[in-house]
């Protein structure tokens, strides 16, 4: 039989017809659609038992209690305990997977062993003039640094200048704010509503006080303040002296409201109004600094802090706070040294603990303090910060991996202690920065052991009470049988709060304010253009990749390399919204994208110090002390 073309056609026709009466095409169509619903390249969330664990956030000084929803041991979402969390805290469990994470110790870019790093650092340390920059003072790790430095010749214990408790430090230390008592809060640029002290506490007290925000830019805090006084950048301290004058200070004789208006641009009537409020609607408290982007210099901070004495804050809104008990063996501790006081070229070995992100200091500023050929060792999680300039980079565990204690925030009237127990195991190659210093010191022991000793020391006091995060129950410490019970409670998530706050007015003899210096600075701050960096807590350290939501996808935060300026200023320089511009200071220039904003003071360029920008570096103008503002030039690119 010969097959004709027609026969084959018939065959095919029959087959085609038949196929429609089988499940094959329909099932295949269905399965193909199901395939698109389960593509193999789609990530699959973990399966397993859901558990709840607790920790304390170490990403900023607030130390918020955190509830972690976990699958097995892996946290999959975080929440505050009895309150919210900030964006950084909410995505803290992503940090172990930060794409730019440091893996393994290295010496100038080449891998080395930890032992080699320890040996090299120890060798240099023998020569003295050793300094440690501790980004998060007040921890047990800080005690380790201070003890070691006390034994070194010329050992310097450094902390970042732009601290939230800068005002308290200026008043002599050992103090805390008590916002709950305050009815008027005068903030000199402190980001009270954005991340300062403990967010939960600030928000709880907020309805009770009138907030006066003195800040050149309309920050979030300024826009939410009851009164906003936009003083020209660099003239804030003059405004402080103006207020001091109205509150009866002798030092500030020349600073009449009219004179202040001329310098700062704040109407005299408003200055009077604020002074009246401080007098009549007390108790008042004056807070300076704390802006992550830049600190006030010493004179400025002192002028601001001094207002508290005039306003009668001491003992009411600023109270003495006891230290958390320290275990034996920490008798000799190096005192804090202000970075400003370190002579240029005065450091031979600088160890930086940047595992806990703090307020950044421009590298150029640190570099000036280094002797030629000085060694820098940075314990860091990523290369974005100082680690990129360091000789030795020591990979540090990140939040969730690190077992740390969390000191009290600056607005906690009582001493507190809590712990981040380290919910995840750190990668093998990492080292706790304090353990590194302990190894360099050759003192033996680990941070974990010292934490245990500290818990024992706390337990010995029998004071105060312990609140567990899980159910909020408070147990008097005296009722805890053993230090082990206390340690267990801390591990499971708990906070110890010292008994009773002291309302005793600390006897502070305040140093006279150098009004002349402030006047000089304020007068020289009358430049046509000012570059004002701004940042937010945690911006200096690594952040979760999810932050693209805030930078890129919603623009709720300024994205990398964006400068905000007033439309009038932009017009003057011929700059368009979204256009490229170059900002220049005496120490460098930076290309930025213009973003026009009526909320910015004319003549001011606001630049975010988000990760990856070099803004801070060009703000560090040498003869202008500090990087809070910098005289700048600008042109269209």
């Amino acid at each position: 039989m010969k097959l004709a073309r027609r026969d084959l056609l018939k065959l095919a026709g029959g087959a085609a017809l038949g196929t429609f009466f089988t499940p094959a095409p329909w099932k295949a169509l269905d399965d193909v659609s199901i395939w698109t619903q389960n593509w193999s390249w789609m990530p699959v969330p973990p399966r397993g038992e859901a558990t709840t664990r607790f920790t304390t956030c170490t990403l900023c000084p607030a130390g918020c209690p955190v509830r972690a929803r976990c699958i097995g041991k892996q946290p999959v979402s975080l929440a505050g305990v009895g309150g919210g969390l900030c964006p950084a805290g909410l995505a803290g469990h992503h940090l172990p997977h930060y794409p730019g994470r440091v893996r393994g110790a290295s010496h100038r870019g080449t891998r080395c062993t930890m032992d080699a790093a320890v040996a090299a650092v120890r060798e240099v340390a023998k020569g003295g003039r050793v300094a440690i920059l501790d980004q998060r003072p007040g921890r047990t790790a800080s005690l380790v640094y201070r003890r070691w430095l006390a034994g070194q010749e010329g050992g310097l214990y450094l902390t970042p200048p732009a601290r939230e408790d800068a005002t308290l430090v200026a008043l002599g230390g050992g103090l805390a704010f008590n916002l709950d008592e305050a009815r008027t809060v005068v903030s000199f640029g402190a980001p009270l509503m954005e991340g300062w002290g403990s967010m939960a506490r600030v928000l709880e007290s907020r309805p009770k006080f009138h907030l006066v925000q003195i800040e050149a830019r309309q920050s979030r805090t300024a826009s939410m303040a009851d009164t906003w006084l936009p003083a020209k950048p660099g003239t804030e301290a003059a405004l402080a002296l103006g207020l001091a004058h109205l509150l009866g200070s002798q030092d500030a004789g020349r600073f009449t409201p009219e004179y202040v208006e001329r310098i700062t641009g704040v109407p005299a009537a408003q200055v009077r109004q604020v002074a009246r409020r401080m007098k009549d609607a007390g108790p008042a408290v004056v807070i300076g600094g704390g802006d992550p982007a830049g600190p006030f210099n010493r004179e400025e901070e002192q002028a601001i802090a001094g207002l508290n004495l005039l306003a009668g804050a001491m003992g009411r809104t600023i109270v003495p706070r006891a230290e958390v008990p320290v275990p034996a063996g920490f008798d000799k501790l190096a005192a804090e040294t202000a970075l400003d006081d370190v002579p240029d070229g005065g450091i031979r070995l600088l160890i930086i603990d940047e595992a806990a992100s703090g307020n950044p200091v421009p590298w150029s500023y640190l570099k000036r303090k280094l002797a030629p050929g000085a060694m820098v060792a940075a314990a860091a999680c990523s290369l974005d910060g100082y680690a990129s300039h360091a000789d030795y980079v020591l990979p540090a565990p990140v939040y969730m991996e690190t077992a740390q204690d969390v000191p009290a925030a600056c607005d906690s009237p009582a001493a507190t202690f809590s712990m981040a127990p380290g919910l995840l195991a750190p990668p093998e190659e990492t080292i706790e920065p304090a353990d590194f210093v302990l190894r360099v010191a050759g003192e033996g022991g680990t941070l974990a052991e010292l934490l245990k000793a500290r818990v024992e020391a706390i337990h010995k006091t029998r004071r105060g009470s312990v609140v567990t995060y899980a159910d909020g129950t408070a147990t008097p410490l005296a009722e805890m049988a053993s230090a082990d019970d206390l340690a267990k409670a801390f591990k499971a998530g708990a906070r110890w709060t010292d008994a009773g706050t002291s309302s005793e007015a600390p006897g502070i003899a305040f140093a006279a304010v150098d009004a002349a210096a402030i006047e000089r600075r304020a007068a020289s701050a009358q430049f046509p253009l000012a570059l004002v960096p701004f940042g937010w807590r945690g911006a200096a350290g690594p952040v979760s990749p999810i932050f693209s939501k805030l930078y890129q996808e919603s623009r709720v935060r300024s994205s990398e390399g964006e400068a905000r300026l007033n439309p009038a200023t932009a017009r003057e320089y011929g700059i368009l919204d979204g256009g490229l511009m170059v900002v220049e200071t005496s120490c460098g220039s930076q290309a930025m994208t213009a973003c026009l904003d009526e909320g910015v003071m004319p003549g001011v360029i606001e630049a975010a110090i988000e990760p990856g920008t070099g803004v801070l570096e060009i703000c560090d103008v040498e003869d202008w002390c500090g990087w809070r503002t910098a005289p700048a030039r600008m042109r269209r690119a």
Partner: protein
Amino acid sequence: MAAKTKARYGMSIDVDRCTGCGACMVACAVENNIPPAPEGATDRKGITWIRVYKIDNGLPFPQNRSAWVPVLCQQCGEHTPCVSVCPQNAVEVDKTTGVVGQIPERCLGCRYCMAACPYQARYFNWWDPVWPAGMEKTLNPTVSPRMRGVVEKCNFCHGRLHEARAKAAAAGRREIDPADYVPACVEACPAQAITFGDLDDRNSQVARESREGSAFHLLERLHTGPKITYRSGRPWVHDALEIKVANNKKEPVRG
């Protein structure tokens, strides 16, 4: 009394409390397995089920004042613009919760619902989602990640409702404990600017707040019946959101 298994979930957002920190956006992304935007993506291609917008009073410095308005799916109740347009029933209003659900597995990605939504609260997966290596371990198992080519949006953290219901069921109850069901953004907000709950329960905080004099809906006159209510005591915020224009025949806000 019969078990209360029906609810009309809603939110009340206090614009005056919002500090614009973005915690809600991050919490939402973490909870709902929303990937970070790829390099080079713009604010118009990324996915943020809740997005915080900055508004201002339009005055020059120093009279200028800003406020922040978090905008998420408004869970429209009456003429839900997106439900009626979906050609294959991937969008619908759940009668027992009032939540507008979007099923990515049913969606064919025609984006008609996005064109229909006046609140710009719907987002399209322009790419397959990518998390940095290792980060898939941190994904939330109660929400399935979405593939490219489908639309997604806020569903009041429905995964949490699932869990709350399972918990209630394990105890033999049909009605859930309201404390067990709080969306991630509400829980995360440090300023506690967002209240969540059952609008049909007249005594709930959210229902009370929604009835306040300063309460309003976005684009009220479109008669979409949103279940998100905003509040502000600042007249300029009302002006900037054109509440007066939109509500010139001010109808009582349904709470």
